């Protein structure tokens, strides 16, 4: 059977192709193709370790700070340096700024515009959704771009610029904070909170965070007209289109944990499997290359031993993406994974009821916006003018280290070895590498490849809209996927 090819996929931060086998109006099998290879791991070989702070953020323009945080953590692991409390709070604020802005960009610019497609013209909600979310011309984007830009003034204050800042260093940040900056950050967050509470949620962040079950969420939404806020609009469309039945995943969720607060991360590290959380053991990560355009494919390797040498003609290869597996398993990463691992009661309820799906992924992302903005308000209070923001220690000539964090779209890890003062090996596993991985040597498809199975295809559809919802529900970042 010939494969149906969907691409170029846009609103996925980079280029993406999806190949489908469709019978009787349903996707039967899917292959996810990451079509771009640049070779950052090869570029980093032989460089001064500190140069990783320049190169790795430039892997990705949308997860730039996440890459900086992972690189700084990996170098800090090599140096054995800890950040002073001011540095830690500033890094959390910078990372949270990017992650929340990314969630917003995803919801308003990447995900919701698909419901304003012609294919839904007959739906009762179509006129209002189109007026609000239509790509480029909808009124939401006109409101969101200025709100997002103003929110990112925090970057101007703490990180110099976004993307591609060098303010984040292994021992903290380069930008000390005075009282006036703390005040300004507080007012930026106040203004952003106002936008969220009026446009996105139509309620206070605290009320949104107090929702603790799907019933509770339904009751909350039912007190308003369906177009009361953008969250309500999404819930209405999600229920009309049964988005909770679309894009079901493998239901094993992983989170590296993120936002360290003096030893305890705001969002815990762990693995969610079979309705409970267990410890995540990073030593059990392997990258399988059996279906990647890569050489040196024998035996999946831990990233410390990983080899990234492309081979466009590799047998059975169909993507530049590797296939990371945790103890041989496919895992899903992202906001839903983070929140189910961390134990958010509403997200736990959603996952227990029907696991990973398009609706649940989006709800988790929106809840996380509320949760993280409240945390940002706390971290702002922790910035102490006059106290140091950076500890500086020399880089050893020989060392190995790893840095694990969470980007908006999921778990990000950097592993490096230093020899004779130079980078001997640097390997990166990005969130979408996990989610959009190809088949492994056992033939097990990656998380998206599994989630696409069963997606409905309407008559005559060239680019099935259900497939688009499923793909974008993961908030993929293709430039990170293969770097």
């Amino acid at each position, binding site marked *: 059977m010939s494969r149906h090819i969907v691409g170029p*996929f846009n609103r996925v931060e980079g280029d993406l192709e999806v190949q489908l086998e469709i019978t009787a109006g349903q996707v039967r099998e899917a292959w996810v193709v990451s079509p*771009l290879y640049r*070779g950052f791991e090869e*570029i980093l070989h032989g460089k001064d370790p500190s140069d990783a702070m320049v190169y790795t953020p430039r892997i990705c*323009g949308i997860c730039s700070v996440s890459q900086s945080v992972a690189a700084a953590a990996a170098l800090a692991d090599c140096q054995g340096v800890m950040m002073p409390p001011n540095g830690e709070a500033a890094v959390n604020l910078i990372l949270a700024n990017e992650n929340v802005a990314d969630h917003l960009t995803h919801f308003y610019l990447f995900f919701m*515009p698909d419901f304003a497609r012609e294919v839904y013209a007959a739906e009762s909600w179509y006129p209002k959704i189109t007026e609000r979310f239509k*790509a480029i011309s909808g009124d939401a984007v006109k409101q969101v771009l200025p709100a997002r830009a103003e929110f990112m003034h925090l970057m*101007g204050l703490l990180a110099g610029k976004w993307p591609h800042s060098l303010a984040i260093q292994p021992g903290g940040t380069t*930008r000390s904070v005075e009282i006036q900056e703390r005040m300004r950050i507080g007012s930026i967050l106040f203004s952003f909170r106002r936008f969220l509470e009026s446009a996105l949620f139509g309620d206070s962040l605290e009320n949104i965070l107090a929702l603790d079950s799907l019933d509770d969420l339904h009751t909350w939404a039912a007190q308003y007209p369906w177009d009361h806020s953008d969250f309500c609009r999404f819930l209405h469309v999600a229920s009309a289109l049964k988005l909770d039945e679309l894009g079901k995943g493998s239901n094993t969720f992983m989170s590296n944990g993120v936002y360290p607060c003096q030893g305890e991360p705001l969002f815990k590290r762990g693995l969610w499997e079979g309705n409970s959380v267990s410890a995540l053991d990073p030593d059990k990560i392997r990258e399988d290359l059996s279906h990647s355009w890569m050489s040196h494919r024998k035996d999946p390797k831990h990233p410390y031993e990983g080899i990234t040498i492309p081979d466009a003609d590799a047998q059975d290869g169909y993507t530049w993406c590797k296939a990371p597996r945790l103890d041989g398993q496919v895992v899903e990463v992202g906001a839903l994974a983070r929140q189910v691992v961390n134990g958010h009661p509403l997200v736990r309820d959603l996952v227990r009821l029907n696991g990973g799906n398009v609706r649940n992924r989006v709800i988790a992302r929106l809840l996380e916006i509320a949760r993280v903005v409240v945390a940002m308000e706390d971290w702002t209070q922790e910035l102490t003018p006059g106290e140091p923001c950076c500890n500086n220690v020399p880089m050893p000539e020989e060392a190995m280290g790893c840095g694990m964090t969470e980007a908006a779209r999921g778990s990000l890890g950097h592993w490096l070895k230093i020899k004779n003062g130079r980078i001997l090996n640097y390997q990166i596993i990005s969130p979408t590498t996990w989610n959009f991985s190809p088949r492994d040597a056992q033939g097990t498809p990656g998380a998206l490849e599994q989630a696409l199975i069963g997606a409905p295809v309407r008559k005559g559809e060239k680019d099935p809209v259900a497939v688009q919802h499923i793909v974008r529900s993961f908030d993929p970042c293709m430039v990170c996927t293969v770097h």
Partner: protein
Amino acid sequence: MTESLKRGRNLLWLQSGGCGGCSMSLLCAESPDVLTTLDALGIHLLWHPSLSETSGADLRDLLEQIEAGEIPLDILCLEGSVLRGPNGTGKFHMMAGTGRPMMEWVNTLSALAKHVVAVGSCAAYGGITAAGGNPSDACGLQYDGAEKTGLLGEEFRARSGMPVVNIAGCPTHPNWVTETLMQIAAGQWTEQDMDELGRPRSYADHLVHHGCPRNEYYEFKASAEKPSDLGCMMEHMGCLGTQAHADCNTRLWNGQGSCQRGGYACINCTAPEFEEPGHAFNETPKIAGIPVGLPTDMPKAWFVALASLSKAATPKRLKENAVADHIRISPASRFRKGP
């Protein structure tokens, strides 16, 4: 045909071997935002990877129509390097769904465009993607590093007769992009608006040093020694602000930011080959204690003489503040009582 198509201001934006960061930066445009700016210019966005609804088959149709000359292409923007590898095949980026290397698409579409714009240092010169051994054989549209041996080559001219516009930067400031597009859309773009590397002179005639808040430290050679120090970062920390062509400290980023305001060195990201400085980015290479790269237009003997003179005259305030992360000594005031 829409009004803007008739007026000939339609824009196609493609991405290849880069990070998408110039688009992300563009979304931070303010007063007004990027979509309002495009509206004001009468620019019709044929397609943009982060903004448009069009995907898959509809986009392939659009590209085919442009290729067939059915839709005029007024401005082609490329973000990200052109990937020529492996072995000249362009297979490191096959444009999804089309089975054709992006390199080939860019070549074809450039020939049809009235203006060809490289957004970011990757599309201009190869940029970060061309670092190290350049594993993907990345180059810019017209340039490969500082030489005009990129994909399109030295002789290339867009339909307007203009060479490729290189809005270099890693990333680009949103206004470098919007203001250049404004000039182009208004028909006020000439070869005199570009410097010798194809960069818009609107920002490339300035130096990052202009407006740097650390200027006083620079004047007295009161230097930072480690991250978070307040002093000038030229002597030890690798800062190239005195040589880098851009207006980062007079225009500012994300409200009030710039690299120096963020406390870190300028790495000259608007220049070709910035990605391979030949030493660690955060260290200043020196010969006999004197930084190798001197400030632009400054004779070496004068720099050495002035530097030693100003070092001898450095006030205590600057000497101490330069190696601190907060102001230890505030400027003298005739109104201050006591010590």
